[in-house]
């Protein structure tokens, strides 16, 4: 087994399931696990070397966007890996923005001045909002780069400044990975809000995510959800009841689990994936316990 690969649990027997309710969010797993960073807590163990989930070809992404429009999708998300490494991302964003509000999850490291100009032009031309979510794990460069790699903080913060200067109001996305080392009273939210305001970001937007024992932090034998735990809980409230993810090797119900055999719902056809999703993975337990959403709000 290669270092950094997620544990490929495929045993879905006896796992509870979530119903399919509607297609609210389409996720485009654009670059698979190809990334220029190699963060210690990466949800799908992305990195620069030999990605275990290959990037998506532009044609499959286009077909999924067109199909999703027909199916009444409300939001489209681009993720990876690092989506801005994909050579077709600008054209795909343009298509996506003609269909629905569109969000890109990025580490910000390749958002140059020129790319920020391009994104601003795309956003201006579109009826729907373009949301750029820039990942940062701490306001302190050293603490951040310990998780995300040398130089990651400076590049991500530069991207936030560039986007902000063009009125693109980026959403800074942070995990709680560093929180245990911090003792300030305000917590992660207040720390980032103060930091962004001090950076001149007058409209600070933040999304704080819990740490998931998945991807690079996954260990075999993690606790899983059971029907007993879910008794009395409305499973239609789970994100996977309204989410589908198109990846290079099929369609999934969860952006965190894309590429994992036990989570695969169909080959490439969105409508064929409109069936119950197995809640077999330890990440499903975290999602249920925290009530978190991968969507913007």
């Amino acid at each position, binding site marked *: 087994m290669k270092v950094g690969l997620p544990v490929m649990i495929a045993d879905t027997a006896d796992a509870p399931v979530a119903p399919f309710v509607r297609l609210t969010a389409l996720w485009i797993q654009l670059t698979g696990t190809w990334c220029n960073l190699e963060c210690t807590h990466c949800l799908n163990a992305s990195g620069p070397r030999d990605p275990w989930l290959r990037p998506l070809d532009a044609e499959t992404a286009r077909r999924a966007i067109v199909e999703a429009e027909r199916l009444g999708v409300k939001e489209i998300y681009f993720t990876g890996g690092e989506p801005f490494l994909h050579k077709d991302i600008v054209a795909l964003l343009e298509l996506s923005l003609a269909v629905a509000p569109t969000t890109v999850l990025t580490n910000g490291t390749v958002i140059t001045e020129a790319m920020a100009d391009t994104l601003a032009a795309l956003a201006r031309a579109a009826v729907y909002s373009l949301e750029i979510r820039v990942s940062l794990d701490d306001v302190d460069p050293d603490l951040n780069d310990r998780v995300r790699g040398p130089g990651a903080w400076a590049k991500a913060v530069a991207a936030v400044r560039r986007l902000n200067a063009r009125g693109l109001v980026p959403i800074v996305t942070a995990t709680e990975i560093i929180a245990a080392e911090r003792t300030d009273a305000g917590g992660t*939210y207040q720390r980032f809000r103060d930091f962004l305001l001090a950076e001149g970001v007058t409209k600070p937007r933040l999304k704080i995510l819990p740490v998931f024992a998945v991807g690079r932090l996954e260990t075999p034998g993690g606790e899983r959800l059971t029907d007993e735990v879910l008794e009395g809980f409305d499973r239609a409230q789970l994100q996977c009841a309204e989410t589908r993810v198109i990846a290079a090797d099929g369609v999934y119900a969860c952006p965190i689990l894309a590429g994992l055999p036990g989570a695969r719902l169909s080959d490439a056809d969105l409508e064929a994936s409109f069936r119950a999703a197995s809640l077999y993975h330890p990440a499903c337990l975290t999602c249920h316990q925290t009530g978190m959403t991968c969507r913007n*709000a």
Partner: protein
Amino acid sequence: MPERVTEYRRIAVFGGVYNNAIALRETLDDARRRDVDAVFCLGDLGGFGPHPDRVYPLLREHDVLVLQGNYDESLASGRTDCGCGYTDPRDNHFARISYEYTFSRTSPDNRAWLGTLPRHRRLRLGEHRIVMCHGSPRVINEFLWESSTPSGLLRAFLREAEADVLLCTHTGIKWHRALGDGAHAVNVGVIGRPENDGTPDVWYTILTAGPDLGVEFVPVRYDVETLAREMEAEGLPAEFVETIRTGWWTTCLENLPAKERARGKF
């Protein structure tokens, strides 16, 4: 047996009263002057402003046809939060203050009445088949912002509702989109709080039957200073009062999509 649907010629529609009885009175007077057949409120009577119980007699006196919003549903069912679904701790902090204030000052009779309100209403405006809701036809607290609501989704809502025109509120900012073939979606705006444009005016909508649907957004000027002073006297947050005076939203910003957020001050 087919559903009985009332037909109108010209109607006034608003949402989000947010305890603002002063703006409500002004809106109702303005709508009457504009010769409407009926006045509709798409819900969210409480929150934000002062003296919740002052709103109810006005609605009854003017025969306003009211739908249930998420705030109304929460108040009626005794929930501990407004059901807006915020995750941002700052938004939740202010939402909690607003909800606890409103809950404690809304009489049990008025709360019970909120529980009797319908969630949808269908009517005809001339030939146009109208469906009204608070958030969206499928979810009471779904945000339909102009920049985050695909036309494909709106058409799907209309197909399912067998309607030509969708009217909603909940977000606090008005918009209208013609969807082709006589189909329209209109977020009618709110009258309880300005819409984050730097002016203290609030907005409602007049819809008029005709070969083409008439959609007119109407600004309402009201005694902002009296409301602001009442809010201060009630100990409501200075951030809320600032919004009333300046027209810029200072709280509950989390759900604003990029385009709407970029247009605001905060």
